[in-house]
């Protein structure tokens, strides 16, 4: 028996035999958790809330006695809505602070920027925001929705329940809206929608003069067919967009707008009365009444010390992600990334709105899908939901480039396995 072998056996025996007390005694300080969210710049509006959510979860876990007998400690950095800075801060978290896990990123461009850093340093990132898919990394767990968990069900709802036959895909000009709209266009054409009945348009980040676009939407929608707008407009450009919709009296009863990036937080800065009836598709709404959700809302309001703060979908994604990570660490009895990654697939944790979130081999999770209509008080009324949960699909089945691609980190050990050529083309960022 070699020395190395001997040590391994010994440590295994120690894990198996030792009672928790001695382990706690030799605990090497707190477990560090990285929080990589912009606290300044354009995305601060959305991301600051997520930073607070992670801090609240860490706080709660510490009050329960920590994890593996060790306390949790947050390392908060500010990438300042600057995409290259995201990569730098991620490197700092992984190489200097040696964090066990990172919760962070919002926009797809920031995720793409940190991806090589996480893959090179073998870190672990929980990404909490709905995104365009077409990606699966060994080092990322995607707790937000992929297109088949948000965009596709929303369009299905509009076709089946509202009878929409004419479509306007309105988005901000960057990777998430462009990819999502590409998928939706292929999906709609597959459903027999003519090209003349689809209008796609992009505007820059922070676009504020919407009068021309809204007038064009009105004109496109007056052709006698039921028309809907699918909005992937992101960030604060939504406020002037909805204001203009209200001013030009685009009623949800005539031309409903279904948004993928507008939640309770975004509506809290708006007069919602003219917007009643416009839609949003999410995997969580604050208004869904379950005991877990009520407890979460209460905990959040107490933590943030403001009674009028709202909860939203990406917050739930962090709630789920954090709980999954805690369970994986408890199962692996280690915070080592390899061990945690091995433990994660198949783990389950309850959603705030009912049902279980299960980690899939493709590093996405199962989620329920809800369609909500905006109420006069800025909350949403759920008008439709999936019967069970929907498993997240990393690679869209509706795009020719990705329909033969599969992600499976359990058996295939590959994020983009081509089922035709039976080859794995390596990490996704290449």
């Amino acid at each position, binding site marked *: 028996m070699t020395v190395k072998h001997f040590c391994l056996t010994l440590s295994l025996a120690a894990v198996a035999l030792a009672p928790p007390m001695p382990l706690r005694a030799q605990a090497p300080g707190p477990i560090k958790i990285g929080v990589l969210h912009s606290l300044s710049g354009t995305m601060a509006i959305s991301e600051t809330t997520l930073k607070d959510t992670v801090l609240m979860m860490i706080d709660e876990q510490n009050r329960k006695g920590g994890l593996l007998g060790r306390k949790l400690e947050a390392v908060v950095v500010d990438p300042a809505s600057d995409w290259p800075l995201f990569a730098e801060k991620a490197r700092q978290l992984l190489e200097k602070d040696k964090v066990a896990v990172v919760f962070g990123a919002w926009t797809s461009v920031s995720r793409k920027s940190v991806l090589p850093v996480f893959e090179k340093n073998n870190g672990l990132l929980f990404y909490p925001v709905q995104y365009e898919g077409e990606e699966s990394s060994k080092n990322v767990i995607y707790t937000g929705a992929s297109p088949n968990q948000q965009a596709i069900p929303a369009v299905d709802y509009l076709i089946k329940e509202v009878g929409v036959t004419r479509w306007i895909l309105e988005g901000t000009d960057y990777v998430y809206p462009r990819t999502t709209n590409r998928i939706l266009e292929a999906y709609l054409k597959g459903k027999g929608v003519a090209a003349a009945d689809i209008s796609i348009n992009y505007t*820059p980040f922070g676009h504020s003069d919407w009068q021309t676009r809204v007038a064009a939407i009105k004109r496109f929608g*007056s052709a006698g067919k039921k028309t809907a707008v699918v909005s992937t407009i992101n960030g*604060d450009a939504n406020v002037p967009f909805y204001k203009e919709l209200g*001013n030009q009296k685009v009623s949800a009863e005539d031309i409903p707008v279904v948004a993928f990036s507008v939640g309770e937080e975004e509506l809290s*800065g708006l007069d919602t009365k003219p917007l009643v009836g416009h839609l949003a598709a999410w995997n969580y709404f604050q208004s869904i009444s379950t005991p877990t959700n009520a407890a979460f809302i209460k905990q959040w309001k107490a933590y943030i010390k403001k009674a009028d703060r709202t909860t939203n979908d990406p917050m739930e994604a962090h709630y789920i992600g954090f709980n999954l990570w805690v369970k994986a660490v408890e199962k692996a009895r280690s915070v080592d990334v390899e061990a945690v990654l091995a433990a994660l697939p198949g783990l389950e944790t309850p959603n705030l709105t009912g049902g279980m979130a299960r980690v899939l081999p493709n590093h996405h999770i199962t989620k329920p899908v809800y369609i909500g209509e905006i109420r006069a008080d800025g909350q949403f009324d759920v008008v439709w939901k999936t019967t069970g949960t929907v498993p997240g699909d990393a690679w869209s089945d509706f795009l020719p480039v990705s329909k033969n691609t599969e992600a499976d980190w359990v058996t295939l050990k590959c994020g983009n396995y081509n089922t035709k050529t039976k080859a794995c083309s390596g990490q996704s960022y290449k």
Partner: protein
Amino acid sequence: MTAASRGGRWLSVLLLAAMMLAAPVRGQTGGTPFEAALAELKEAGFLEKEAAVERALATGHAGALPAFTALLEERLYYRVHDGRVFIVKTADQSLPSMDLVDPVSLDPAGSSDPSELVRIGTNNRLRRFLRTTLARFALSSPDASVRLGAVKAMMRTLDEPTTDLLRQHASHETDPAVMYEIETGMALAALAGPDQEARLTAIAALRERLRPEVRNALASLLETSPDGQPAEPDADVRRAAAAAVESIDSARRFYAGIETLFFGLSLGSVLVLVAIGLAITFGVMGVINMAHGELMMLGAYTTYVVQLLLPGHIGASILLAIPAAFLIAGSAGVLLERTIIRFLYGRPLETLLATFGISLMLQQFVRSVFSANNRAVATPAWMSGTLQVNEALALTFNRLYIVMFTLGVFTILLVVLKRTRLGLQIRAVSQNRAMARAMGIRSDRVDAMTFGLGSGIAGIAGVALSQLTNVGPNLGQSYIVDSFMVVVFGGVGNLWGTLIGGMSLGIVNTLLEPYAGAVLGKIFVLVALILFIQRRPRGLFPPAGRAAEGT
């Protein structure tokens, strides 16, 4: 839904309308069909709710109309502990208690804690259904605008009972606007009828009407089915319909052109408004003030604070915010000039860097005070909505006000510069500082006042922007480039240049946007501007005379 069942329901609706006057009203005892239907609303899905509403209307109960009006307005609730349905007077969840009305007896039924009540939800489809159904009752309203709304709502779903009702109502309608809409509706119904003569008359009546429904109905006559059969068998009718569609289309194109022009002017007036303060500080004084955007931001936050201080008086708070923003941004400007900029006159690069630093500090200041989140500034009722010129042209009120506001600010500024003592001194100092000082003008005081005036105007622009866009720490950044662009394009030091330059940039931008998209359109404008500046470095209206040689 079949015509027969619609007709049946229809009869019941008329019956209800008749009984409204005479129906005896009883208390909520449970058991009557109306109460059963109301109770069903609590748990049902949206389609079942629609059916329940129909059944309740069929009972002809006097409580049906108020109850379903309340349902449409999100004021119909049920109480958790006894499951009784109530109308609330105002649906303000923040009130400590809500006043209840019993929908069966229509008597006040005390009040209840909001947490005790659950709202009965609606969705788009149900609201649409309720609106068209309730519109039929509104036809008998004494208010002509209510009747007009009702007729318009009924036109969305024109079927036989609806047109019958319109025809009946037409005989005693007195208001010409309502009558006009009724005629449109009847002509639309006649289009689908069997009589060829009636169809031709209907087309003749419709060719002047610009509603999209009319155009679509006429265009559908021209369609051909997949087997090559035209939808309209008669060739004369087809010809008349084609001519009518052509005439409607050309009229709509004309109004679309006017609309684009208006959009361009309104975008242009926003540009003028944000640039006009800069035209003073940069144009007249020659100070490159990178913090100009942040002074606008201060104005926008002033609007927010004034609104917080005056809850419930949104309209007054906006009007009050204009002088308040002028004072706050103006005094910030004076402070800036006295403490920093006056030491940097004649050193444009240092001024640029220093004011850029100040802009960052101001941003962080509001972030610390108001948080990084955008603030909601409410829009007064008289500023939202549209001015309906005709069926094809509607101008939004907020944009109309902004155009007028910009012209007002411009005129006042012009008068201040040309007609007042301060204006005279400002012009004198900017043209020849040494000579002005020799004439006894305290040039440093004039500098401070000029900078304060420009900054104050920026604050006023902030008030206007708070009505159009986000009030947040980044408000200024998104407008600073635009405002420099306008001032440089119009000609530095010339107010008229700023006005003409801003308006023409706005119009060009709006004209390009539908063809090139918002991103490319902006790029085109910028490239064209660079080329223009290459040829005419002093802008549209170059300053003339000795001042042009620079100080």
